[in-house]
């Protein structure tokens, strides 16, 4: 039985083999004099020159094939920055956008050789060598000089990566540091051409997917016009795959949830019955409560009749409909009766509904009274 260590060793071996295949089949190094393919041998990774310029999925560009610009933009929105960068650098540049404080962003722009770009026929990743080399260096703050032809310098300081080719003005590492405003005491490493490419391939392994996305070069319209068939096939295949996969996923989710519900079985039915009973009982209680709240009592009406008879009024007609009572009667002064009624605690409103008339020295009145709800509740 294989131990855990043996299994993980085997997995690492498989992974390393896969990475070797990916590097040797999908990576190309673009240099001034042509394309180089990485080949693994006993001494490590070697670069073999190919007779024709060829592009692969991952293309690493040597330093002299691009120019580097680093700027801060006071723009928060990434799509706005991209529009500005397109105006400023055109389509031959790739940009790495990273957030800064106070809503601004720092952009590292890599402007590639236009003549070289015109020969790119496939969509691919275009990776500047300085960015990859900086990934390979473990120190946070350091400088490097790479002994290529022409030599170039790289500085990694406070999260920024800056590189420059040697020129009349930048003739050595001191002048490069001075030009970039870097401290004199930064640790420094010198790399040979061979060492640097080994380090570049190691750095390539450390690039994150989001960083990789910044260096993706989309196919342009002219390329699509002449080479549309593979894109059409891939698009149709992807669309078909999406249609199939999404349908299968939805079906799987539905079936799995239905199975979960079925697994609950009779217990669920019992619970549903109980919930239905609870709802029915609650509705019943609410219905009874509503009836009780709207219940009209007769006692307050009789209490009011008794009160009026005690005020020496003669009552001829009493009509009650829910909380409203209409009384017709006679008294020496109808307004006195109305005043008494308005003062009575059970009465909410009282008003004459028709003009008072004199009958046998008494005033005949018709008054409409609305009883207070709380008064009837109090009686209850």
């Amino acid at each position: 039985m294989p131990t855990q260590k043996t299994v993980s060793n085997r997995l690492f071996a498989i992974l390393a083999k896969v990475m070797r295949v990916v590097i040797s089949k999908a990576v190309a190094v673009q240099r001034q004099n042509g394309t180089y393919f990485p080949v693994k041998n006993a001494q490590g990774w070697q670069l073999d020159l190919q007779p024709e310029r060829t592009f692969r999925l991952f293309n690493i560009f040597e330093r002299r094939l691009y120019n580097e610009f680093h700027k801060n933009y006071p723009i928060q929105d990434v799509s706005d920055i991209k529009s500005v960068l397109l105006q400023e650098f055109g389509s031959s540049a790739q940009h790495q956008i990273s957030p800064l404080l106070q809503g601004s962003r720092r952009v590292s722009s890599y402007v590639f050789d236009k003549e070289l770009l015109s020969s790119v026929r496939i969509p691919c990743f275009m990776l500047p060598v300085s960015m990859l080399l900086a990934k390979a260096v473990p120190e946070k703050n350091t400088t490097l000089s790479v002994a290529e032809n022409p030599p170039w310098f790289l500085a990694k300081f406070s999260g920024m990566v800056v590189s420059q080719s040697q020129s009349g003005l930048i003739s050595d590492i001191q002048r490069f540091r001075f030009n970039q405003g870097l401290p004199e005491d930064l640790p420094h490493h010198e790399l040979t051409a061979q060492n640097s490419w080994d380090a570049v391939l190691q750095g390539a392994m450390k690039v994150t997917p989001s960083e990789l996305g910044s260096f993706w070069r989309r196919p342009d319209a002219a390329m699509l016009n002449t080479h549309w068939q593979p894109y059409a096939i891939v698009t149709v295949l992807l669309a078909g795959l999406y249609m199939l996969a999404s349908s299968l996923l939805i079906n799987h989710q539905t079936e799995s949830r239905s199975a979960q519900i079925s697994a609950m079985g009779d217990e669920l039915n019992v619970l549903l019955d109980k919930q239905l009973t609870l709802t029915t009982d609650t509705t019943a209680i609410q219905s009874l409560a509503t009836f009780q709240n709207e219940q009209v009592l007769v006692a307050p009406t009789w209490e009011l009749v008794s009160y009026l008879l005690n005020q020496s009024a003669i009552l001829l007609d009493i009509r009650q409909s829910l909380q409203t009572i209409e009384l017709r009667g006679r008294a020496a002064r109808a307004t006195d009766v109305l005043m008494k009624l308005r003062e009575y605690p059970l009465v909410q409103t009282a008003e004459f509904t028709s003009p008072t008339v004199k009958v046998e020295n008494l005033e005949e009145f018709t008054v409409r009274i609305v009883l207070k709800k709380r008064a009837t509740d109090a009686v209850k």
Partner: protein
Amino acid sequence: MPSNKIVLLSVLSVILVVKFALVPWYEAQNEQISELTVTTRKLAKATALQDQKQALDAELAKVAAIKQDLEKSLPNVADHNEISLQIQSEWQQFFEAQGTELKLFNWSGQAQQADTQYWTGRVTLTLVGKVHQIAAASVRLQQKTPGLSYSSFRMNRTQGLAFTDHAEAEFSVDVLYRLSPP
């Protein structure tokens, strides 16, 4: 093949693909999504119910006790005629005992209370007797019948009403009862 024919064939192919592949797939997908949404809701409800099982049992017991308590005072009958006859006979005796005469008892109809077992029957009554007896009888009737509500009341006398006078009063009352068909 001329290029315009190629364009026409391409357009036709796209239309056919949309009509016979994309649209049916889209409709089927929508149907599947609706089914998934319903199933997801069912599952969420079922899970929530399982989680609240104890609380549900406690709430059910509490509500059942309240309902039983409220129902205690309500007449329980098998059909509407039964309640009509039952209260007519009962009330006739009651009013006689109160010194009044039930001159008219008319069951006008009944209505269901929401979607429950409870119904309200509308009864028109005419009572004859002394005013104080009518007053006392109407108040006592409501005291002994908690599910009773006076919807209207009318009484008149051309010579004027006094508690000792003989008069006739018309009442319209709603009676709450429980219908439990056998």
